[in-house]
């Protein structure tokens, strides 16, 4: 039984897991040369990384990770040859329904040197179903490769979402994370990036919206091991109704990460008196020649902005919606698929105006 104190997740136990029978890899046309993309259970060549024996505690915790390892029912294994650059994003979509209410996905992505790709994961529920997702995505970005990983979570308010993402970045490699959290009753997500070698880089942009009784535990870690490694975390969110969120941002400069730079910024808009917002930004440092900073701010919508918009004839709620959308816009615009962008816009609008 698992208990998370801060979001009041008490005595949590895993539900029964069903097979996920739907197709989840969306690939238009031919598989590009140099890409091997398989469903995880088709893959004979299991990766040799023995992460469960690692002493570094990461992700949502051993219970969640072991559970994925034991019971995964979906997921991809993606292998990108050296020097291959994909122009179109690879889309992996899990649309949970009554027949397929559980997704336990295990994803392994390996990008060889100088390769480039964008991979988008979309978790949603189009039906009223108590869906459950617990996933683990492991990423290896080799020298000078560049990966953009987009995770969009818009499960319904009856569902539970748990997701662990870990990336290992080699010399001059780059991993960009974009995470959009709009749904589910309880959501725990963890993104950990190990900047293992010289000049490795990672950027994480996150937006989230808390409405109804949603509880979110969002944790983002950048672990600098390589010299001159660079990281950036930027999180913007809005909380309304009785929602509750915990933000954990860690910048960890390990010994040897000379001249590394890390920054972290969290901004949360609080829209109702009944919200709860915890922030735990940590700055850990074993190396003197680094630059690290974090900033967090929280508050209400700027009154003069609101007043200006209302003087132009907008109702308060519309004005607020506009301001929140404005804060989310830079992140939403980075999603490379037009239809999906529209779906997200509608979802944000529906949740903000839903009264």
């Amino acid at each position, binding site marked *: 039984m698992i208990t998370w104190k801060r979001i009041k997740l008490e005595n949590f136990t895993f539900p029964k897991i069903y097979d996920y029978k739907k197709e989840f890899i969306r690939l238009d046309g031919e598989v590009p040369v140099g890409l091997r993309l398989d469903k995880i259970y088709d893959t004979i060549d299991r990766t040799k990384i023995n992460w469960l024996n690692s002493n570094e505690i990461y992700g949502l915790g051993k219970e969640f990770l072991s559970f994925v390892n034991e019971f995964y029912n979906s997921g991809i294994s993606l292998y990108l040859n050296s020097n291959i650059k994909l122009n179109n994003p690879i889309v992996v979509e899990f649309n949970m329904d009554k027949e397929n209410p559980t997704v336990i996905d295990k994803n392994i992505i390996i990008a060889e040197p100088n390769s480039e790709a964008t991979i988008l994961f979309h978790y949603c529920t189009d039906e009223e179903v108590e869906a459950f997702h617990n996933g683990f995505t492991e990423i290896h970005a080799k020298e000078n490769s560049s990966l953009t990983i987009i995770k969009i979570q818009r499960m319904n308010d009856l569902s539970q979402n748990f997701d662990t993402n870990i990336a290992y970045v080699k010399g001059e490699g780059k991993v960009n994370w974009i995470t959009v959290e709009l749904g589910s009753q309880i959501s725990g997500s963890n993104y950990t990036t190990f900047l293992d070698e010289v000049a490795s880089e990672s950027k994480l942009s996150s937006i989230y919206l808390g409405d109804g009784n949603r509880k979110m535990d969002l944790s983002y870690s950048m672990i600098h091991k390589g010299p001159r490694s660079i990281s950036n975390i930027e999180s913007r969110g809005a909380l309304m109704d009785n929602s509750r969120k915990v933000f954990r941002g860690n910048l960890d400069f390990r010994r040897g990460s000379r001249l590394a730079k890390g920054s972290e910024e969290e901004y949360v808009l*609080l829209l109702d008196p009944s919200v*709860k*917002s915890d922030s735990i*930004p*940590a700055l850990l*440092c*074993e190396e003197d020649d*680094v630059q690290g*900073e974090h900033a967090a701010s929280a508050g209400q919508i700027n009154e003069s902005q609101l007043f200006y918009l209302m003087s132009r004839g907008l109702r308060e709620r519309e004005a607020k919606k506009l301001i929140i959308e404005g804060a989310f816009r830079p992140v939403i615009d980075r999603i490379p698929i037009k239809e999906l962008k529209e779906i997200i816009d509608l979802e944000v609008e529906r949740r903000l105006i839903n009264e």
Partner: protein
Amino acid sequence: MGRKKTYIEDIDRGIYDIRNEFTYKYKADKGLTPEIIKDISREKNEPKWMTDFRLKSLEIYNSMPIPTWGPDLSDLNMDEIVTYIRPDTEMKHSWDDVPEEIKKTFQLLGLPQAERESLAGVGAQYDSEVVYHNIRKELVDQGVVYMDMETALIEYEDIVREYFMTLVPPTAHKFAALHGAVWSGGSFVYVPEGVDVDIPLQSYFRLNAPGAGQFEHTLIIVEKGSRLHFIEGCSAPKYKVNNLHAGCVELFVKENATLRYSTIENWSKNMYNLNTKRAVVDKNGTIEWISGSFGSKVSMLYPMSILRGEGARSEFTGITFASKGQHLDTGTKVVHAAPYTTSTVNSKSISKDGGYAFYRGLLKVAPNAYGCKSTVSCESLMLDNESKSDTLPIIELNNDDIDIGHEAKIGRISDEAIFYLMSRGISEEEAKAMIVRGFVEPITKELPLEYAVELNNLINIELEGTIG
């Protein structure tokens, strides 16, 4: 291409390390049993409720676990610590009556001189008991009470009983329970309504005995509209065995009152400093903490402000300097429990020579505390890469009508800043010294003069090569 680094020597401990021969009148046995507690209480001729309180605290102590977070306390063996040592003297009101050797210690620490020049009252504790206590007559005439806790327990029993360990109950944590069981010494201050004490009071705590614990209790009540500045200083000579300091400070700041509480802690590096400090502030009152942590082997110190009256204010200014063999886990807690309360936290830390500085803070806003404002700023400077520096400020918000800002920074001195100063004709060494001094300046200007000078001296030593 190694950059040159600046090596800053330790604070010259000189006078702090002078140890006197260990003499005493009464010494409790090592360790903790109800018998030892009863002995201490009997030795002090305490009322029965206090003896019972001590015994109850001991029970709580035995039932509580050692904290599992923060620094490692496994080296601290309570069975080896002597909890009560009565020095070989009675309490005096004139330095002339204090035994020569003890007087000399305090003279070297500059206490009698400071008393003549800049203090309104002084208390000096040596091991477990206060050996000297004095206050200017003008203040006595205005009704200000400043005395040792033992005397207060007899002369102001009702007040002490009303407030004693209500803010830091023995159930707060294991070392608060320990304090409740074996507390001894400390100061009691009562400032009546509308009195402005314009020169500071200072209590100095000196632990001379090896393998001992000091558990002084400071209780300050500042009534409506009054002002007080209280300075607490601590030091001890270094021994090979572990010493323990588990003091407790309870501050009650009433409506419109202002209390500034300054602490300069320079314990020796065999000391476990597990001190608990809390202030509760009523309507429009102000608590100002100035906290300098330089000494001790392990510190766990998080002064807490509870803003329970509308418009109450707290300000925390702290500096932590962790050097070789030190793990200083410090920070502050602020609880906004009423509307329109404001708080400011400004913390700086420096770590060097394998020292470990950890800022651990909590900012909590209760659901009813609307209109609150708070800014938290933490900066750390590392002077080499054997050291460690971590920052963990926790923010818990429980309503939407608040304005919270938090910033933290870590790093070395920027080359651009040095370059800029050098382009203005300042030498490289001087530029670096200026920047480090600038880093700690917001704190040093709040420190009592002699400590500010000491800190500056420390920074000026051997500024060669790049700092950082």
